[in-house]
Each structure stands twice: as structure tokens, then as C-alpha cells.
């Protein structure tokens, strides 16, 4: 006996095996991201007051780059549209158009990841500084004439690191007091305040990295997990588009099913982002 319904749908359920499988898998993925979203809510509700510079409520707010986030959302929505077009093209027996649409999807996925890594870099080089005098800033640092960068993890500084490296003072370029969305912009404040800070005056210094605050911890964790899903999805779709597309000649119906399953996963990954974007960036 061979395994039935691998290609043709089972009459009473109307589904082929892989479609049931992918939906079950997506159900568990919903719970996985749901658990992380609830973790986000619990951490945010439980956050204490007064631990973040220049921000009244306890939770860091408005630190993420909204224009870039919006653009990335558009990129992912586009990729979902093209993946459906690719599937529809196969249904209409148009392999060339399938391949074009698929390539656009994959390019969108990689573009998303590139933009995301740019955003990560922005955070990894951005610092929070609190002085013993009680003043607090966000901005960029320069240690021994060098800006710490993204690819060089060893050069992310915090107070303990400055002390062990015996760095006596750092140059700090503070951000201008930024208008939060929904607040009036005060034009009278100076653009950038540049100052020399002695290590002995610092109460707290750290980049916008996960260990700095639970907001960054949960932001990086969720977006990284989502990023791995994007990467995994893109790899699978790329395999379907190029080496795996030989199946189109031998078993076209099964190949269309595979594209549909891949497309379902891709839609799910994009849908997660549709929820992630407003919750992390805007709220």
C-alpha cells in the first residue's frame, strides 16, 4: 500500500496531507509567537518607573525607527502578493511568470533582512548614558577616537568594560531632545550636545542591546526569531524556484501543492510582522 492523498485531496476533508500538516505547524507557530507577545505584555505591564532617560513612562518608547519599519512592512506585503501571483501563474500553466514572481518574493525577503540588519546596527551603536549626578542621555559614544560598530561585538561598551579597559573618559554625542510622536517639538533646544564624560562620573552606560533593558531583550528576541523565519522561508522558496522546480516537469500537480504550502508559510511569516510592527514600533 502507498500513502494516499499526498497529491490529490481526500474527498471528505477536501485537503491533501501537506496542507493539513502545514496548518497544524502554523497553529503551533501562532502559539509560539503568542507566548512571546504575552511575555511582551507582561514585561511591559510590570516595568518599573524611572529607569529610562527622558521618558516619562517606564517602557522605552519611540526608540525604533518608524519610517524604516513602515518601509519594511511594505516590502513584506509586496512579497506576499508576489508569492500568490507565482502560485496563480503555475495554476495557469505559466512557468516563466512563476519564476519571475518567485524571484521578486525572494529579493523582497532578502531586502527585508538587509534593512533589518541596518536597524540592528543602528541600535547596537546607540548608547544610553546615566550620570551619577542624575542626568540621563541617549546618544553615541567615541572611545579612544573610535565608534564601536556592529560587526565587532567586542567593541560594545558598558561601564564595567570601560573600567576593566581603564578608559578614563569617553566622548559622548547626545541626541537632541526628540519630539515623541504626539508631542510638540521644541525648536529652541540645541541639535547635538557633545561632551566629554569621565568614567568616574558614569552611573550606567550601555548600548541599546538586549542586556540593557527588557524592552530591547524582547524586541531583539521576537524580531530575530521572525528574521530566522524569513530566512528559512526564503531558502525554501529559493529551493522551489531553482533546483526543486524540476518537479514541475514530472509531477506538476504536486509541485503546485508545494508552492501553495510554501506560500502559506510565507503568508504566516508576513502576517506575524503585520502584528509585530505596530506593537513594537508604534504602541
Amino acid at each position: 500500500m502507498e500513502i494516499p492523498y499526498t497529491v490529490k485531496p481526500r474527498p471528505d476533508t477536501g485537503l491533501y496531507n501537506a496542507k493539513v500538516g502545514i496548518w497544524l505547524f502554523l497553529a503551533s507557530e501562532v502559539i509560539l509567537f503568542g507566548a512571546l507577545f504575552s511575555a511582551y505584555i507582561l514585561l511591559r505591564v510590570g516595568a518599573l518607573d524611572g529607569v529610562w532617560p527622558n521618558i516619562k513612562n517606564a517602557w522605552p518608547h519611540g526608540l525604533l525607527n518608524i519610517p524604516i519599519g513602515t518601509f519594511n512592512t511594505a516590502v513584506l506585503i509586496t512579497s506576499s502578493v508576489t508569492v500568490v501571483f507565482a502560485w496563480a501563474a503555475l495554476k495557469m500553466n505559466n512557468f516563466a511568470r512563476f519564476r519571475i514572481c518567485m524571484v521578486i518574493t525572494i529579493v523582497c525577503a532578502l531586502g527585508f533582512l538587509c534593512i533589518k540588519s541596518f536597524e540592528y546596527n543602528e541600535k547596537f551603536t546607540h548608547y544610553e548614558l546615566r550620570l551619577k549626578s542624575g542626568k540621563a542621555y541617549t546618544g553615541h559614544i567615541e572611545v579612544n577616537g573610535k565608534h564601536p560598530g556592529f560587526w565587532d561585538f567586542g567593541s560594545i561598551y558598558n561601564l564595567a568594560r570601560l573600567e576593566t579597559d581603564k578608559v578614563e573618559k569617553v566622548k559622548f554625542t547626545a541626541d537632541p531632545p526628540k519630539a515623541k510622536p504626539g508631542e510638540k517639538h521644541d525648536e529652541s533646544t540645541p541639535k547635538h550636545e557633545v561632551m566629554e564624560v569621565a568614567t568616574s562620573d558614569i552611573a550606567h552606560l550601555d548600548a541599546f542591546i538586549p542586556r540593557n533593558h527588557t524592552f530591547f531583550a524582547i524586541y531583539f528576541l521576537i524580531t530575530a526569531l521572525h528574521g530566522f523565519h524569513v530566512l528559512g522561508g526564503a531558502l525554501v522558496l529559493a529551493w522551489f524556484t531553482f533546483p526543486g522546480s524540476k518537479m514541475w516537469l514530472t509531477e506538476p500537480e504536486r509541485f503546485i501543492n508545494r508552492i501553495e504550502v510554501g506560500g502559506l508559510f510565507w503568508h504566516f511569516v508576513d502576517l506575524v510582522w503585520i502584528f509585530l510592527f505596530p506593537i513594537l514600533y508604534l504602541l
Partner: protein
Amino acid sequence: MANAKTTSHGTSADQAHDHHHYEPGFWSKYIFSTDHKVIGIQYGITALVFLLFGFILMLLMRQQLAKPNQPIPVIGPILEKVLGTDMVNSGVMQADLYNAFGAMHGTIMVFLAIVPLAFGAFGNFVTPLQIGAPDMAFPRLNMASYWFYFLGGVVMLSSFFIPGGAAKSGWTSYSPLASIADMAHWVDGQTLWLIGMVLLISSSLLGAVNFITTIIQLRARGMSWMRLPFFVWAQLVTGFLLLLAFPPLEAAGIMQLVDNLFGTSFFLPTGLVVNGSQLPVSGGGSPLLWQHLFWFLGHPEVYVLILPAMGIVCEIIANNTRKPIWGYRSLVYSVLCVGFLSFIVWAHHMYLTGMGTKISTFFQTTTMMISIPSVIILTALFISLWGGSIRMNTPMLFALAFLPMFGIGGLTGLPLGLNATDIYLHDSYYVIGHFHYVVAPGTIFGLFAGIYYWFPKATGRFMNETLGKIHFWGSLLFMNLVFAPMFIQGMKGMSRRMYDGGATYAGNASVLGLNTFISHAAIGLAVFQIPFIINFFMSIRSGKKISSDNPWEATTLEWSTPTPPPHGNFIKEPVVYRGPYEYSVPGAAKDFSPQDQQA
């Protein structure tokens, strides 16, 4: 495993010869097989080894509890050589090792022994046969699921040998304890525990997707939902529990891993002081969050442990009473209710955390609700015995013992579900007694019953009845001698997780003597497992051969395959004409009417 598959052509060798198109080599046949039966047996053997290993850990802990801080005879010096003097000093088990054994005993028994045995082994071997399918829906995924499990087990075991030793924060790994238990090492036992868990969870997820798809899609012609054997229903619900309850633990595991390795504070509260100095972390995390995410898995997991065993017991009771199961439909609806309700009872493990009385009241109510369908299942199985002509063979003895043992386990759970009484009982030996009654003489008896029952299908030979009965009576007696005294200790207020056996607290004096008693009983229990091990291996080679493909005269589809079933299982596509338990149908020629027998 190899023996199990090769030595047993039995009576149906001629039929099996029809299936010659599949002749793989040794590796792809026994090691990297995609055949659900081979994978089931792989799961079974691996899980039984882990079961024994977890049991040995417990015997060593019982030795420490009975004779605190005295050298362990024979094994003590060996452990000292293997694990170092930090763990065992002049043959005496150190507190760290006791804690590590405690954590690993729990983890191994739950995630590496019982779930793989109940779901992986029996589910894999029996489910496709019972629904009349040629294999699982995704055979290669099935193989991947086994190897993820194997890898997870290897990672767990290897954690004993790294500096600092295995995880020692309990099988629940509560934060922040789990994050600070071993601060001297960057990668510690807890790290490997978390990596191992992520692998095991991936394995369970793949398995669950596969099982549910198989049951939905690959049922044979005529196998409508209400003709499914109850075991398949139990596996279906178990599959859904694994699919939907495990991801939160995966998320929590990743968060704790990041906490431990990269200094985040998901579960570390602000102002956490360790050894007199404040921990250099940002804080702002929530220890309660870990407990919620853990128990969101943890409670459905209890039903993952028990439901497959109920399924097995149901099959065996129907077969050996020679009459239909009483209230098949109520069993099915109850098991669905249990599955649904088990997702909303998790916080009854957390009454003591200060999460608030309103929340406690909600979870107390749902906990009382979930006991109703559980009792319906148990009652239906009890009533099924009424008026049957019962065959007292070994599988039936184990199945019968399951009923009262699970009953004791379930009933002693009620005081723990009520939050007023739980406050007194929660951290005591009472809890240990309670859940071991559910899992040890409950689930494990169910699984033993299943092994004795399906052994002839897998090998073509019966297991030895005499040895089986020795195994059964010895196990039944000593299981009770081990776990019943724990209720007394617990009600006296003896705290669990004490490596000196509770001697620290004066209030325990009157029940400390029971520690020695329990430890002796545990050794007795170990002795009575030897007949099983001998029986298992002897019967593969020299057990009594079966005289037909349906030696128990059962009705379900797995008995209409050749023995052992060939690749692809059925000679011709089975068609189902009747319900699963049509025994002693009035007017029928025989006292059983197989599901594929035409009306």
C-alpha cells in the same frame, strides 16, 4: 530492535512475501528507517533505556535519603571517579549532585521516557495500524522527529559530565534560581538542559503534526470518526496537546537561554541580590512569567502522560472482557473535554506564587471541572468490567491495576487543586506521592500492559506469562509501598527536595523512619523489574509462537495485518464495516467481529 524485526516470521511469512518491492539495507532498514513500526520500536527501546536510567538516579537519591551523608556502597566510589569530588566526596553524595539527580530524574522520566514511550513508541507503532493506514503521513518527518529526540537525550545526558554538572534547579527550572544556580560557568548544566529541551520540543512538534495529519487524512475507507478505536482518539488529543502546549515552553526556554548566556533579564527581577551583592543585570523581568509559560505546557503535559495510557487500557479491557466498552461515545467526548480544559488549569501549580486570590479561584474552578471528564473515563472503564468474562492474562492484570492506581492518584490531586488545602500541602511529599501515583503505577502500568499486549504483533511471539505475573504482582505491591507512605510524610509537613531527607526540621522526626522504609521498597521495586527485562529479551528469541495473526482474538485493524506487519502494513486496502469493540455480538459466529469483517 533488530531481533524484534527479523527472528519472527511466524505464520504469516507467506503473506509477507507478497511485498517484495521494498528491500533496503541494514542502515536504512533499522537505523534511518522511515517505516513507522521501526521508528516506533526505536522510540520504545530508547525510552525504556531512559526509564531505567531515570529509575537508577532515583535509587541513588533514595539511598541518600535513607542514609543521609553516608557513603554509597559500591557505586559511590565509581561515581566519584566519573563525576569528580565536587559531586561525590569519599563516596558521599553532595547536595549539588542530589539536586542534579532530582532535576534530571524529573526531566528524563517525563520528557525522555514516558512521553516518547506513550506517544512516540505506541503512537507510532499502533496508530497507523489501527486506522488502516500504510504508514504515517510524513515518514521522513517521522524519522527526523525520532532523531531530534535522540539528540535531545544525548545533550541531556552529556550535561552530567561538563564542569559544574547537570542542571540542578528542578525539572521545572524556575527562574531566577535556574539562572543563578551555577554562576561560575558560562555554559552550565542549565544551558545544556535548555538546548536539550528545545530539541525535544522540536521532536514533539514534528511528531504531533505528523500524528494529527495521519489520523485526519489516512483513515481507511469506512473508518468514520465514531469507529476509531479509543486509543486513536487518545493519541489525537495527545497530539493536539503537544502541538499547542509545547511552543510556550520553547519560547520560555529560548528566553531563559538568552538570560543565562547573554545577560538579559526576561525572568530576573529588579534588585536581585545573590550572595550578598546585587546581580549586574538590568532587572525588570518577571519570575512569574517563566512559571506561567512553563505550566502552560506543564499541565497539558500531565494529560500527555496519562491519555495514551488510558487508550491502551481501554483497548485491553475491551479485548479481555470480551464485551464492548461501556459508553464509547462518552469516552470520546470526555477525552475531548479533558483536552480542552487542560489548557486552562495550569496556574493551580502556582497558588503559592502570590498571583492573587481571584486568579486562584478561577483556576481552582477549572481544576474541579476537569476532574469530571476524567472520572467519566475511569467510570466507563470500570463499568466495562461488569458482566464480562474476564481473561486474567498479564496485559489485563496491568490494565486492571491501572484503574484503582490512577484513581488514587486522581483523588489525592483534589486537595491540591483547592487552593486553601494546597497552601499546606504544596511543597511537601504529598505532592510527590500524588503525581507518582498518577504516573508510576498509573501511566507506567498502562504502558507495561501495552508492551505485553502488542509484543506478539511486533515479534510474532508472546511474552512469558509466569514472568509477567511475577513482574506484575511485585510491581503492584512495591509501587504502593513506595508511594503510599509519602502521603503520610507529606501530611506531617515534610518538605520535598531536602537532600538530607528532611532531618533539618524537627517536625519531621516522627516520619523520618519512613524514608528508610520507602528506600527498601524502592529496591524491592527494582528487583521486580528484572523479570520484565529477562522476559522481554528472552521472548524475542524463544517466546511462545503465535498461532494466528490475531492471537488475542481482537477486533481492531492492527490484528488483520501479517505478523510482523510488512512495509506498507496491509496486504490489501482494509475497509471498515463496524465499530471498534464489537465483541460477543449476538448471533455472530465468533465472540469477536473484526472491524474489517463484512457485515
